[in-house]
């Protein structure tokens, strides 16, 4: 009797363990993030192919003041797409809904930091020579735009926490939390005050 009692207890323990781990690893992340589609399909591969012949900084350039321009405005698209190139649904949508009315495309930014974070791209890419891929991954080689995963609670993009829900990322793209910034800064011997990276 005592032995049976122990066994059922162990069984229940294991059931609890497994269910909680499944919930923690799979259900919670699925529930925590909402998936939002980008307004338009976009292929980085097509644009950087030999046919289109564009370079990264044709769109993602630095402004005259040294700031990072981010995602280009519709004016950049108009240069080539004033009239539809091809007949794909996205192409027609681009021309009809955005280019003709002169509306900006409401792109969703995967790496959006909160307002109080100051990240000077130029210092990292030009002075520290950190490749874009270290944080952004091989985004430049993608055929399609993945949906943005948005944390329902904090509103942050999942890219900030990192794709691996465990919070341990060993290969790029690395997560972009403050602790990641600090880790990297410490490794490189950059010690700063709060306001160095906060505004």
């Amino acid at each position, binding site marked *: 009797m005592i032995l049976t009692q122990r066994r059922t207890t162990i069984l229940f323990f294991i059931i609890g363990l497994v269910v909680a781990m499944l919930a923690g690893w799979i259900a919670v992340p699925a529930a925590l993030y909402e998936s939002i589609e980008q307004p338009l399909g976009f292929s980085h591969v097509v644009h950087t192919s030999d046919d289109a012949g564009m370079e990264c900084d044709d769109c993602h350039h*630095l402004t005259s003041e040294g700031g990072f321009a981010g995602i280009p405005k519709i004016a950049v698209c108009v240069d080539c797409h004033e009239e539809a190139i091809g007949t794909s649904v996205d192409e027609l949508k681009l021309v009809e809904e955005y280019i003709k009315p002169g509306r900006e495309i409401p792109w969703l930014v995967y790496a959006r930091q909160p307002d109080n974070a*100051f990240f000077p791209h*130029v*210092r990292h890419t*030009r002075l520290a020579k950190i490749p874009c891929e270290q944080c952004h991954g091989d985004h430049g080689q993608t055929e399609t735009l993945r949906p943005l995963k948005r944390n329902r609670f904090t509103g942050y993009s999942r890219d900030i926490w990192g794709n691996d829900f465990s919070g341990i990322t060993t290969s790029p793209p690395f997560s972009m939390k403050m602790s990641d910034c600090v880790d990297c800064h410490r490794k490189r*011997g950059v010690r700063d005050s709060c*306001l160095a990276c906060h505004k």
Partner: protein
Amino acid sequence: MTKTTPKKRYGMVIDIDRCDGCGACMVACSLENNVSVVPAGAAPHRGLTWIRVYSVTNKKEYPDSDTAYLPVSCQHCGNETPCVGVCPQSAVDVDPKNGIVSQIPERCMGCRYCMVACPYHARYFNWWDPEWPEGTEHLLNPGVTPRMRGVVEKCNFCHGRHHAAQERAASEGRSEIEPNEYQTACAEACPNGAITFGDLADKNSEVAKLAAGPESFQLLKSLGTEPKIYYLTQRGWVRDMATRTPLISKGQSHD
């Protein structure tokens, strides 16, 4: 390993005799730093003015009457900084590279101990939720995050401009900024050139020369806080009023 960078000591010299109390510095500062406006009917001393121009008269009659205007912002104390030690959650930070005393709004819990401790009354609390008329959030300076209700804020030498200057320097491949690339909004806005901002550690800078001059003084020097804001005046009564000298030797008081 810490990178060896020349240590800066940003500071300011304010020529009281040039200040005519127009308040452009206050407005420029508020716009630069997205300082919100408190509602109508707010009691005195509840506003948010990172730099505040005091108007002081000598209380004499015409023709001897005289008015001095003293712009007072955070004095960025260089020694025994009264606000830094008291903050329980390390929300007050001194940049070891340049001596700027900063307040981190996201870390502040709003206990206001630092305000009580500050002898210059230069710290301000957000008694209200910050509000801008509808639509004007598009007009905010993107380089400075607005503060939320319930936290303390104060002058940080227009740190957004420091960021911008660093960014500009980096885009030209420089890791250090040139002295003329970084100016505070108040110094830029002052029509009379009463405010000189720069690196006090650089002996050749305008600000260091002025600060070392015979007409310069610091507010409440006797407290030993060693502010990095210096004031200039030729008017004796202003200097006598604004500065204090220890009534007994300071050396005895620390044992």
